[in-house]
C-alpha cells in the first residue's frame, strides 16, 4: 500500500493552512450537518461522497460505495453517528475505511461522508498540558460531553477555541516569509515561548499582522495574496514535517538514570527501543524519563496500555516541578492516550499523532522527548487491520510492510535545523517500549526495531523478579552513540569518564564469568581476588546500576553522582586488591563501612553528593589501616568531611535519611 501521493497532495494544498481549530472544526460538526470538511477545505469530494453508503461492516472496518473520489488516507465520517475513520483501501468505487471508534450498531445503508482532508494534528498554542485520545480529541472535554464513559461519535476540538493568547509579531508588513518561518510568538505557559510557525507549504509577503491579545482561532496575519495566517495550523499526521537539515547527534539526551547515562547513553535526537516482558519496568522507565529527563517538551503516547497508568501520570505530573524551568512537569507534557480497551484503529493512529506533536515543537527549536508505550500494541493494531483487509500475512501474522512502517517512523526522530528563519535547532528523541510475547526478543516487532534503532535497553524478567531495577540486561543492551558522545562526556564529566565506563563493563563481564564458575564449584572454591570481583560487582549492580524510581532522593541521578558511584566502587576494588597483594586476607578486611557509605551515597539527594562521596573515599582510604571500626569510623569521617563549604552534618542527615522525606507527589523533584 502506498500512502505518499495523496497525503502529499493534501499537505501541499492550502487546505492545511487552516486555523488550529480547523481540524477540530471537522470533528466538531454534528453528524447531521453537511460534510464537515467544507469548513476547512475545498470540497471536491463532497458531492460524490454524499451518495456513499455503507455496504459492509466487520470489526473496525467499514466498506462503502461509491467512493471513487476518495483519496487514500482521507478522513471520512461513517454512519449516522458520524464516526471518524480513515480510507485505507480503494478498489474501483469501493472504499475501505478504518474506523477509529466502536463500530457496533452500524448498519449497511448508513451514509458515509468524505472530509476532503487527511487525518491531521491540530497544532498551535495550548497543546502543552493536554491529554488527547489517539486521534486528537481532548479527553476532558469528551467527558463533559458524555460523562465518564466514552461513547462513539463524540467530537471536540483538540485546542480550546475559546482560549486567547497574547501574540507578539516577529515580522512586519512587507516582509517576505516562507514555510517554517517564525511569524511571532505567544507565551504558552509562563516562561515557555511558543513560536508561531508559518505552515510549511505557505509563503509570500506579509500584508497585515496583528499584535496583542488574539483569540485562538483569529487570523493574525494576512499575506499579500490574501492567504490568512493563524496561530496554529493542521498537519497530516502520517507525513513527516519538513526540515532544513539533519544534524549529527553529538550530545546526549541526559536521562538521570545511571544505567543509561553511564552505560548506554542515547544521543539527543536518537532512538532507543526498550523491549521487555510484562512487569519488567518499561512503563516505569518511560514515565521516569518523562518526569526527569532533560527535555523541553515531552510527548507521551500511551498506546494500547492501561488506563490506571494514565491516571497515575495525571495524578503525579501536575505536582512535580521541573527545576530547570520552575514549571510543573505537566506543563511540558502532551499526553496521547489510547488505552487497550479503546478502539484499535485509533491506537494505530496515536503514535503518528504523537510524532507530529513532537516534530512541531522541534520545529520551534526545542528538545523534545517522544515516549511510546508500547509500539507492540501499535504493530498489533496494524496486524489486526491488515488481517481484516485479508492482506497476505508475513511473520507471525504481521503485515509484510511492518518493517518499513517502523523504519519510516523511527526516521522521523533526529536532531535538525528546522525549516525557516531565524535558524533553530531542535530534536526529537524517541524512546519506544516494546512488549515481546513471552519476553522473547526474536519476534518480528523487536527485530524490526533492532534494524533501525541507535540504542537498545533490553529488560530482563529475571532481574525484575529479583527486584533489580531498572532491570536492564547490560549484556544485551547497547548504544551506538557511545563514540559520538564520548567528547561531550569527557568535557562535561572529566577525561576519565570513558575509562570508568570501560572498567565497569569489564568488571561486570568478569563477574558474569565468575558467577558461572561459582555455580559449578562454589564461591568458597574461588580465589580471594575473584571473590572480591563478585562482591564489588554486586555493589556496582546495587548502587550504580540499581536505581529506584520511587526513592525521592534517587529517582533521578545527576551525572556527578553517577560518576562518583562508579569511581568509588572501582577505587574500592583497587584498594582491596592492593591490600591483598600486600598480604592482607580478604576475610579480615572489613569493608562493611565502605559498602554502607556507598549505599548512603546512592540514597542521598543531589545536595549531599559531594560530602557523601568524600566520606566513602575516606573509608576506602582507611581500609587496612588500624582506624576505629564501624559506626565511629563512618560518623567521624562524615563529620570531618563537612568542611565549611560543604553541607554541615545536620543538613546532610535529615531529608536523605528520613523515611518520610517528600515523595515525588508532594515535593519538588529535582532534575
Amino acid at each position, binding site marked *: 500500500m502506498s500512502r505518499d501521493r495523496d497525503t502529499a497532495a493534501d499537505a501541499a494544498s492550502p487546505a492545511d493552512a487552516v486555523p488550529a481549530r480547523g481540524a477540530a472544526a471537522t470533528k466538531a460538526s454534528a453528524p447531521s450537518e453537511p460534510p464537515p470538511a467544507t469548513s476547512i477545505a475545498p470540497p471536491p469530494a463532497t458531492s460524490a461522497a454524499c451518495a456513499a453508503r455503507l455496504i459492509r461492516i466487520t470489526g473496525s472496518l467499514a466498506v462503502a460505495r461509491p467512493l471513487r473520489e476518495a483519496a487514500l488516507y482521507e478522513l471520512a465520517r461513517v454512519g449516522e453517528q458520524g464516526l471518524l475513520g480513515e480510507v485505507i483501501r480503494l478498489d474501483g468505487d469501493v472504499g475501505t475505511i478504518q474506523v477509529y471508534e466502536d463500530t457496533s*450498531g452500524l448498519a449497511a445503508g448508513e451514509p458515509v461522508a468524505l472530509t476532503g482532508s487527511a487525518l491531521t494534528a491540530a497544532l498551535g498554542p495550548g497543546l502543552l498540558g493536554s491529554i488527547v485520545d489517539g486521534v486528537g480529541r481532548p479527553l476532558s472535554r469528551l467527558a463533559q460531553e458524555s460523562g465518564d464513559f466514552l461513547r462513539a461519535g463524540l467530537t471536540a476540538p483538540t485546542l480550546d477555541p475559546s482560549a486567547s493568547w497574547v501574540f507578539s509579531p516577529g515580522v512586519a508588513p512587507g516582509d517576505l516569509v516562507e514555510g517554517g518561518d517564525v511569524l511571532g510568538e505567544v507565551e504558552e505557559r509562563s516562561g515557555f515561548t511558543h513560536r508561531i510557525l508559518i505552515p510549511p507549504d505557505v509563503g509570500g509577503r506579509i500584508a497585515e499582522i496583528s499584535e496583542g491579545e488574539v483569540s485562538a482561532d483569529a487570523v493574525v496575519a494576512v499575506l499579500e495574496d490574501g492567504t490568512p495566517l493563524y496561530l496554529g495550523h493542521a498537519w497530516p499526521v502520517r507525513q513527516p514535517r519538513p526540515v532544513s537539515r539533519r544534524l549529527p547527534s553529538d550530545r546526549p539526551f541526559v536521562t538521570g538514570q545511571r544505567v543509561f547515562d553511564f552505560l548506554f547513553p542515547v544521543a539527543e535526537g536518537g532512538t532507543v527501543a526498550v523491549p521487555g516482558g510484562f512487569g519488567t519496568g518499561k512503563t516505569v522507565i518511560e514515565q521516569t524519563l518523562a518526569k526527569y529527563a532533560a527535555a523541553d517538551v515531552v510527548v507521551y503516547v500511551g498506546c494500547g496500555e492501561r488506563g490506571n497508568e494514565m491516571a497515575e501520570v495525571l495524578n503525579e505530573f501536575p505536582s512535580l516541578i521541573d527545576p530547570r524551568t520552575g514549571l510543573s512537569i505537566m506543563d511540558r507534557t502532551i499526553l496521547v492516550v489510547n488505552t487497550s480497551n479503546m478502539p484499535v484503529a485509533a491506537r494505530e493512529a496515536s503514535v503518528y499523532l504523537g510524532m507530529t506533536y513532537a516534530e512541531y515543537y522541534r520545529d520551534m527549536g526545542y528538545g523534545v522527548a517522544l515516549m511510546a508505550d508500547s509500539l507492540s500494541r501499535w504493530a498489533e493494531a496494524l496486524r489486526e487491520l491488515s488481517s481484516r483487509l485479508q492482506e497476505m500475512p508475513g511473520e507471525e501474522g504481521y503485515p509484510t510492510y511492518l518493517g518499513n512502517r517502523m523504519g519510516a517512523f523511527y526516521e522521523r526522530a533526529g536532531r535538525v535545523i528546522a525549516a525557516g528563519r531565524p535558524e533553530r535547532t531542535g530534536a526529537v528523541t524517541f524512546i519506544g517500549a516494546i512488549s515481546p510475547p513471552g519476553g522473547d526478543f526474536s519476534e518480528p516487532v523487536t527485530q524490526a526495531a533492532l534494524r533501525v534503532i541507535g540504542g537498545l535497553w533490553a529488560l530482563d524478567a529475571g532481574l525484575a523478579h529479583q527486584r533489580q531495577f531498572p532491570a536492564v540486561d547490560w549484556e544485551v543492551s547497547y548504544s551506538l552513540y557511545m563514540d559520538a558522545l564520548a567528547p561531550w562526556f569527557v568535557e562535561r564529566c572529566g577525561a576519565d569518564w570513558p575509562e570508568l565506563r570501560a572498567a565497569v563493563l569489564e568488571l561486570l563481564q568478569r563477574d558474569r564469568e565468575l558467577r558461572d564458575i561459582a555455580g559449578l564449584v562454589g564461591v568458597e572454591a574461588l580465589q580471594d581476588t575473584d571473590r572480591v570481583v563478585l562482591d564489588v560487582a554486586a555493589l556496582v549492580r546495587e548502587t550504580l546500576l540499581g536505581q529506584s524510581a520511587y526513592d525521592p532522593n534517587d529517582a533521578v541521578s545527576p551525572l556527578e553522582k553517577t560518576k562518583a558511584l562508579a569511581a568509588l566502587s572501582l577505587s574500592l576494588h583497587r584498594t582491596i586488591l592492593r591490600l591483598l597483594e600486600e598480604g592482607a586476607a580478604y576475610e579480615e578486611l572489613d569493608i562493611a563501612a565502605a559498602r*554502607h557509605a556507598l549505599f548512603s551515597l546512592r540514597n542521598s539527594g543531589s545536595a549531599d553528593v559531594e560530602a557523601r562521596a568524600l566520606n566513602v573515599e575516606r573509608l576506602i582510604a582507611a581500609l587496612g589501616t588500624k582506624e576505629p571500626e564501624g559506626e565511629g569510623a563512618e560518623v567521624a569521617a562524615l563529620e570531618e568531611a563537612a568542611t565549611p563549604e560543604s553541607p554541615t552534618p545536620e543538613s546532610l542527615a535529615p531529608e536523605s535519611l528520613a523515611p518520610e522525606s517528600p515523595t515525588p507527589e508532594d515535593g519538588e523533584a529535582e532534575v
Partner: protein
Amino acid sequence: MSHHDVHPLPRIYRGVFAAAGPLLYLTGVRRAKLGEWVSVRSVGQTRRGQVIDAGEEVTVIQVLEETLGLRPGETEVVMSGTTARVVVGRELLGRILSGTGAPLDGLPAPVGEDLRPIWGEPLNPARRTRPGDFVETGVSAIDGMNTLVRGQKLPVFSGPGLPGLQLAAEIVEKARAPRGEPFAVIFVGVGITARETQLFLDRFKGSGASEWGVVYLSEARDPTIERLLAPRVALAEAEFLAFDAGMHVLVVIADMTYYCEALREIATAREEIPGRRGYPGYMYTDLAGIFERAGVVQGREGSLTQIPIVTMPDNDITHPIPDLTGYITEGQLVLSGDLHRKGVFPPVDVLPSLSRLMNAGIGPGKTAPEHREWANQLYAVYARGREARMMAAVVGESGLGDPDRRAMDFADRFEREFIGQGRARRDIAATLELGWRLLERLPREDLLRISDATWAVRDTAGGDATVRDATVGDATVRDATGRDGAGRDEAARSAEGTEASP
C-alpha cells in the same frame, strides 16, 4: 453510560443459505447492525446469536448455543434491532445466574434497575482516579509483598492442580471492607466444573457472602460462546454496583484460561488466521476489554477490583494466556508447584509475583512508613537465598559463602513461616512484624536496603513494634555498620513463637 435506541421493533427473516460451525449466513436482511442481538428459531429450538459481519447482501450471525441439528432451510432469524444488553441492579445480589444472565436458582428473572450493553463502553482514562486504597486480604504474601488496592486487576496465575481458586476464596472471605462500606462480591464461573463452583460457594455458606454476592455461571457443560459473554455480563452488573450504586465490588473470574480457549475455538470456527499457538491475534485487545473494566472513577463512591484466575497451561508463564494477561493486568500472584508440594499454603512465589499498584497503597497513613524498604529487603534476601539454594544443589552447602548460607536459611524460614500462613488471617501489623523478625535474624550488613533512619526508629521502638506511622524526629541518629550482634538474636528467637494468629 448511554442507552441506545429504546424499543426497536424486532424483524423476522428466513434467508439462511449456509451454516458452518457456529456461523449462519443469511441474505435479504435490511440494515442488520454490527453486534445486533438475534434469536435463531429452528426445528422447535430457539438459540441466541449476534451479527458479526453486517453486509448489504450477506449478514453473518454467530450463534451462541450449539448449532447441532440446526437446519438452514427451516430457520427463522429474529433481529432484535439492538446490541446485547443485560439487566443490572442491586436486586441481583444473592442471585445465581447463567453466563447470559438467566436465573439458575429457580427464582423469577430479575427486573433490575437498568439495561446495560454487555460490551461496556471504555472508561475515559482522564476520568479515572488513581487507585490507592489498601485492601487488607489477611494474606501476608499479598498484603506485605504484593499489596492489593481497590480498583486493581490482580490475577492469580495458578497451575494445574494448584489451589488458585482456594486462594481467591481466601481473599474474598478475608478481604474486609474497612469502615463498614458497602461491599459486594461477584463470582464468575467460566468453564469450570460444577464441583469447583460448589467448592468455592461453600466457603461462603454462613459467612454471609452469598447474600452480598452475585454468581454467574457458565460451566464446562454450557455452550462455548456463553463463556465469552459471562465475564462481560457480570462486569456490566459489577460496573453498575460500583459506579452507580457506590459499592466496593470484587470480581473473581475463574478461569480465564477456559475463556481464552473458547475464544480460540470460535476463532478457528470462523476460519480466522491464528496467532501465537493458535490463539487469535486480537486476544490482547479482547482480554483488555474485560480487565480494563476494573478501576475507580472520579467523583464516584465505589470501586471495581478484579481477581481473575488463570491456570497456566503446563505451568508455563510464557504461554499466551498468562503472557497477555500479565501485559494487561496490574501485576500477578504466581503460585508455585514447589511450594505447594512442600505443603506451603498459599503457595505464592513472590519473586515472579508483582503488584504494580502496591506503592500507591502502602506507606505512612496506609500501612507503615517503612513498608517499601521492608518489602525491598525481604525480596532482596529471599532472591539471594533462592539463588544460593540452587547453587547449593550443585556445589553443596559447604561451597557457599557465609552471606549466601544465611540467605538460604532465611529463604527456608520465609517460605515456611511468612508465606505459609495456612488458613490463619494476619493483619498488616502482624505481617510486617513477622517480616521484621525474620530479617532481624540477619546481621545488618546483609540488610543494606533498610535505611539508617528506619533502623533508628526500629531500635528506639525496642524492636518489638512495627514502625507504624512513626515519624522520625531526629534523623541524625546514624548507625553506620549495624553490626550489633547479641541482643538482636535473642529478640528474634523470643519472637519465633509469636506467629500472629487470627
